[in-house]
């Protein structure tokens, strides 16, 4: 009998693929995402639907969707076994607390990254297959944004892991995580709209959801002209060093959260 981190991860994966919530959460979020995009599409009144147009269109609602996916998967994977006390049996079997903790963090991270990537890629790929990619944004620029989005997602998963091991009730974590995420967005919006506080917007990289919004970075949309035809194009110039800095800040904060969560769990009584 060998009890290792790998065993724990295998067991968590085995469980998560058999749980209904794994699929229900993804389906519900996909529906919300599609409905939001359809409403925006109707609002814009554009007939020029393409993959790149969908990507730009999703920038407003996507931070909320990505946050909810990371929040629910992490909270349920880390906290589900605390509620029904099956996690106790891992400790009773003599498992290291580090294995119990990190297996859940890693499986939560896996499902969050997979679901976020799928929801970012699949609908857009489907539209691209039907209507082409379009000219609003290059494939490379969209791919780069998608890649850099992973850092704040990792940070969100880390934070929700810490929160779940602290509170031990995943339902409360989902509630708190939702309020905190929306709170961040509202706070940043109010600061930006006031315009007089003189706060450097780069500081928003220290917040999770505003980081997601900034990485999408599709605010500056103008007209392009090619072959006698006008079209919308994202004119925002991407700055690699800004993106790297944002990713680095998010990954460092993620590491702090993960370690803090483990330190809390390491010496804590289990109910």
């Amino acid at each position: 009998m060998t009890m290792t981190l790998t065993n724990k991860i295998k067991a968590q994966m085995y469980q998560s693929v058999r749980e209904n919530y794994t699929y229900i959460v993804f389906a519900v979020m996909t529906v919300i995402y599609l409905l939001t995009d359809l409403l925006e599409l109707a609002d814009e009144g554009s007939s020029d639907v393409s993959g790149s147009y969908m990507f730009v269109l999703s920038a407003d609602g996507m931070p909320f969707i990505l946050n909810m996916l990371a929040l629910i998967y992490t909270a349920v994977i880390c906290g589900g076994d605390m509620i029904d006390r099956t996690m106790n049996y891992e400790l009773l079997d003599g498992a290291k607390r580090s294995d119990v903790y990190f297996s859940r963090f890693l499986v939560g991270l896996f499902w969050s990254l997979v679901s976020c990537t799928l929801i970012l890629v699949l609908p857009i790929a489907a539209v691209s297959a039907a209507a082409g990619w379009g000219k609003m944004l290059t494939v490379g620029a969209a791919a780069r944004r998608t890649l850099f989005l992973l850092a704040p997602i990792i940070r969100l998963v880390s934070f929700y892991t810490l929160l779940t091991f602290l509170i031990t009730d995943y339902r409360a974590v989902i509630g708190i995580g939702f309020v905190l995420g929306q709170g961040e967005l509202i706070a940043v919006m109010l600061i930006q709209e006031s315009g007089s506080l003189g706060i450097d917007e780069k500081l928003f990289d220290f917040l999770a959801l505003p980081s997601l919004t900034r990485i999408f970075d599709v605010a500056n949309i103008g007209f392009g002209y090619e072959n006698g035809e006008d079209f919308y194009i994202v004119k925002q110039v991407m700055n690699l060093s800004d993106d790297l800095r944002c990713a680095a800040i998010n990954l460092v904060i993620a590491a702090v959260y993960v370690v803090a969560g483990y330190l809390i769990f390491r010496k804590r009584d289990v109910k």
Partner: protein
Amino acid sequence: MNEVIIEVNSLTKKYNKAQVLKDVSFGIKKGMICGLVGPNGAGKTTVMKAVGGLIIPTSGSIKLFGETSEKGLAHSRSRMSFIIETPYAKQNMTARENLEKLRLQKGIPDKKRIDEVLEIAGIADTGRKKIKNFSLGMKQRLGLAAALMSKPEVMVLDEPINGLDPEGIVEIRELLLKLNREEHITIMISSHILSELSLLCTDYLFIRHGELVQTISADELKRVCNEQYRIRSNNNSLVPAILHEKLGIESFEVDRDGTVRVFEGLNDLERISRALYENGVVPTELHLKEADLENYYMELVGDENDNDADKQDKSANVSKRS
């Protein structure tokens, strides 16, 4: 058989100001079936959780298979299995899926072990039925199956027969006895069904208000409990003197209510009653009491509604004899 497998020394646990365990010490030897007996809230589950590493003691130490280091204790726990409070069960999975998850988690290579433990626990025919549709008794059986997955040397079981029907209780009792006798599995068990414990246990730990009141073997318990005369009379105060001076009986105790319990000369009831009559004492109650575990427990741990002084008095009496 004399190897002490579970050794608890001066174990204390405090939650803020509440002290739930006070200086608890005991040892469980290889081969024992040790019953942990006490009222609700006495600290039985807390003791088991501390042994299992779920709670961290405020002070004191735990030694398992001779190991006290964190790493050594973790390794020792991998040789044990536990059912504490809720049996192991993921509600949305079948019994087989639950055990497969456990197999992966524990790194048990042999998949056939799942069939074996399902068979042993009597839930081999539950098919695709999810645990949320199981009865409490079936969940208990799944908990036992899970506990047996890794072929443990020690089982720590907190109320394992809760929710079982009479037939299930007998089956589980026989299973535990078989595991103890044939596989030499040491068992620490708590239950509120004392008649069941008395059919299983080789030793008992009595716990109350977080304190270990007494440890006693089943043989000693029988010796202490069995065959005692209880005498109540029109003049209780004279009885001890008659027993001692007229009959030369040394082994007796007087309870607070005046009842005299006699532990020797038990084959000569006629002689005792005659001596009492001859000395002007009329027995109002004179009978042989074969106290079982339940009676012993009630006397030792007492009715929770009794006042503390009364309880201390009773427990002191029994402890004195053991």
